[in-house]
């Protein structure tokens, strides 16, 4: 029988990939993935929204509507809303809280009967939305307040049959599709029909994203309002590119003066409509993900590097292999390659779980521009930790010492940001997250497990303490981080390689 042949190094590589260590890494990755999903679910579970929605007074009642959409523009049903409304003038107006749920069109409709209070002033005191998914809220109305947040929406006095302002409403096809229609309300003086007015629709590529994002605005075709009959009408919106999320409508007269507008987001002292999501859920998700991976991936790296290289070397179990027709360098490199392969697959898998979970739960995947930096930081944290284990296997005598010296930096690195803040607060209670933030970033470069967290901060502009970063936080940017990351991976590896080749 002719023997099948296979290179000895490839043979060793394949053997490593079937070891129990890889099983352990898979278990750790599953735990990390599940943890990421839970983090996303919890981050997307509650949004506090300031403001209200389309409102008008008609037939003895105020009507308020809110529309909930996901990041892709699709209506979200099942969003729970709690609205508290009180009277601005007297206690005779109805209050709340009103518990409502969005319907299949994403609409949350509230009717507040005021049969004998046609001139009541109403104030929306609070509006809270609870959803398992990330939600964009559109609302409109004529309000008097100032951004950034509107803790109170003052509806003001409305005469019977009068609707003020202009407001977007969205058809079942969704706001962002070409077939969308806008429901426009316009009122002339004393509730008369508007005449000689036109409606400009503008689109801005300022895309709502769970992960934030900024861009400019461009104009869209102007629609004459002449076709509008009555106080409201449906007409098609313009064709918008891709994932357009912000549209504002301007009601202008013949001289081009803007009489009213729907502006997203709302602007100071301007009548219109707006949406506010208090926080982009992607930011805490990335922060939580980075914190989890600060533990899981370096731990997986230590386990797999210890199992595949350090333990066989320190127990002598690798000696029967070294006595075979192989070189020390070859075995070292092949085992590092197998460890690196496992950890790269694990890192990609972790990121894929995050990406898929964001897409499924938030309605939008992790931005493409984020993927490479995040993956890079995961690889630095994992491959760097593995390289340290390889190095320790040549510097210490026992397996226990290797594990101890591997786990201590992991623990220190994992808790570093909390530790730094705690030490600062202990030294002087006046020191807070601000000082901690300025000190944190440069020191994160000294701890391998901190790299995912550092990358997350640089991407989102927020430190783990929730404080905003300056333009060049502590002199640390992606270039500096990448330089340190490469050094963390290559230097221990190179030293370990030299020791493996020249020392027993």
């Amino acid at each position, binding site marked *: 029988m002719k023997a099948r042949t296979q290179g000895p190094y490839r043979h060793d590589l394949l053997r490593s990939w079937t070891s129990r260590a890889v099983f352990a890494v898979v278990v750790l990755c599953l735990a990390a993935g599940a943890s990421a999903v839970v983090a996303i679910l919890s981050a997307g579970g509650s949004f506090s929204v300031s403001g209200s929605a389309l409102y008008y007074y008609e037939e003895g009642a105020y009507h308020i509507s809110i529309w909930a959409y996901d990041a892709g523009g699709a209506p979200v049903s099942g969003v729970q809303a709690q609205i508290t409304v009180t009277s601005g003038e007297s206690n005779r107006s109805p209050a709340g809280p009103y518990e409502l749920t969005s319907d299949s069109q994403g609409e949350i409709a509230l009717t507040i009967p005021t049969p004998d209070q046609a001139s009541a002033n109403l104030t929306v005191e609070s509006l809270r939305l609870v959803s398992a998914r990330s939600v964009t809220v559109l609302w409109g109305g004529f309000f008097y307040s100032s951004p950034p947040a509107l803790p109170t929406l003052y509806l003001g006095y409305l005469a019977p049959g009068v609707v003020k302002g202009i407001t977007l409403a969205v058809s079942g096809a969704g706001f962002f599709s070409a077939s969308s229609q806008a429901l426009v309300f316009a009122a002339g003086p004393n509730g008369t029909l508007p005449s000689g007015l036109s409606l400009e629709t503008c689109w801005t590529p300022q895309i709502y994203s769970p992960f934030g994002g900024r861009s400019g605005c461009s104009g869209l075709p102007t629609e004459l309002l002449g076709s509008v009959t009555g106080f409201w009408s449906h007409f098609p919106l313009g064709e918008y590119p891709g994932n357009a999320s912000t549209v504002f409508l301007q009601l202008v007269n013949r001289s081009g003066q803007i009489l009213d507008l729907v502006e997203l987001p709302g602007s100071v002292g301007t009548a219109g409509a707006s949406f506010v999501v208090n926080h982009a859920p992607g930011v805490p998700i990335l922060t939580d993900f980075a914190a989890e991976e600060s533990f899981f991936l370096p731990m997986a790296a230590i386990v797999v590097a210890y199992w595949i290289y350090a333990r066989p070397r320190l127990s002598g*179990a690798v000696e*029967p292999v070294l006595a075979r*027709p192989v070189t020390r360098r070859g075995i070292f490199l092949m085992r590092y390659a197998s460890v690196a392969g496992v950890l790269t697959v694990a890192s990609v898998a972790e990121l894929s779980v995050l990406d898929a979970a964001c897409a499924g739960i938030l309605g939008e995947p992790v931005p493409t521009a984020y993927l490479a930096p995040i993956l890079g930081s995961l690889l630095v944290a994992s491959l760097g930790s593995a390289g340290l284990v390889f190095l320790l296997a040549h510097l210490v005598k026992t397996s226990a010492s290797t594990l101890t010296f591997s786990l201590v930096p992991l623990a220190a690195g994992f808790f570093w940001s909390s530790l730094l803040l705690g030490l600062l607060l202990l030294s002087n209670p006046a020191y807070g997250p601000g000082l901690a933030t300025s000190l944190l970033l440069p020191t994160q470069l000294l701890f391998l497990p901190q790299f995912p967290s550092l990358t997350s901060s640089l991407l989102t502009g927020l430190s783990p303490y929730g404080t905003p970063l300056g333009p060049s936080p502590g002199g640390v940017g992606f270039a500096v981080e990448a330089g340190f990351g490469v050094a963390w991976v290559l230097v221990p590896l190179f030293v370990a390689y030299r020791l493996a080749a020249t*020392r027993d």
Partner: protein
Amino acid sequence: MIVIDGLNKTYPGKPTPALEDVHFDLRNGEILGLVGLNGAGKTTTIRISAGVTLPSHGQVLVDGHDIVRDKVRASEAIGWVPEIFPFAPEARARQLLVYLAGFHRLSGSPADARAREALDKVGLGRVADAPIRTFSQGMRRRFGLAAAMLSDPQNLLLDEILNGLDPEGMAFVRAWVVDLRKQGKGVLLSSHLLSELQALADRVAFLHQGHLLRVVDREELSRKAGMNLHISIDNLDSGAVAFLSTIGSVKIDQKVVLLSRSSMAQAAVTAELVRRGYRVAEIWSEGISLEDFFLQLIRDERGPDGEGS
């Protein structure tokens, strides 16, 4: 063939070298015994020759290939059996052999067949799938032999493998080693059981405190350390004489057999006779033993004032 040329080894943190300028060779078709006290450098010599430990200076040429610079080619001609075979706690016998066979470009069923064959040869076929950690010392030694048999190497490096073996195991190793010699292979065999080496080795290299004292061939050995056995057997018959004749020269004086140039050690001869049903009333030797010879060499090395040279 292995040529050990000016071998030096100093372990980090150790003030004295483990080996210092050691020269000798292992020829094809011979058994070379390696003798020394604890710490003499026997295991270090074998580990360096096996490519497991790096020398500080000097070189080991295996069939002309340097074990450091041309490791792959050199290791293809080496089979190493350590005194204690190192293995991962979860390792199973056949599984580990299949893995090791992979380094000789064998995989799948050919590797499995080779592993089974090796295990059968050393008598571990019935426990092929058992964890090695459950093996006795003797079984682990046999497993080491099986691992060395995987590639059918030209040179065998056997480090104290006779220690802890039962009589059956020793007989197996003895027969195996003699067979290897017949096949023209070189066998470097270190052992504390000097009587065994005396019976088996064609030459013996004496190491002491990292220095090579001497390499003595069989003729000189039998001349200087020759040993005659006097065996008194109650039920002596032609069968016993026939057996003893196969392992040495026999002269009979009543019930006492004088066995000279025996290829078996005294203990082994006794054990074999008893196994064959003979009542050995008495057995004694005359002449200086290999052990005496070795101790004399050490005394010579230290010189008349007891100082090392």
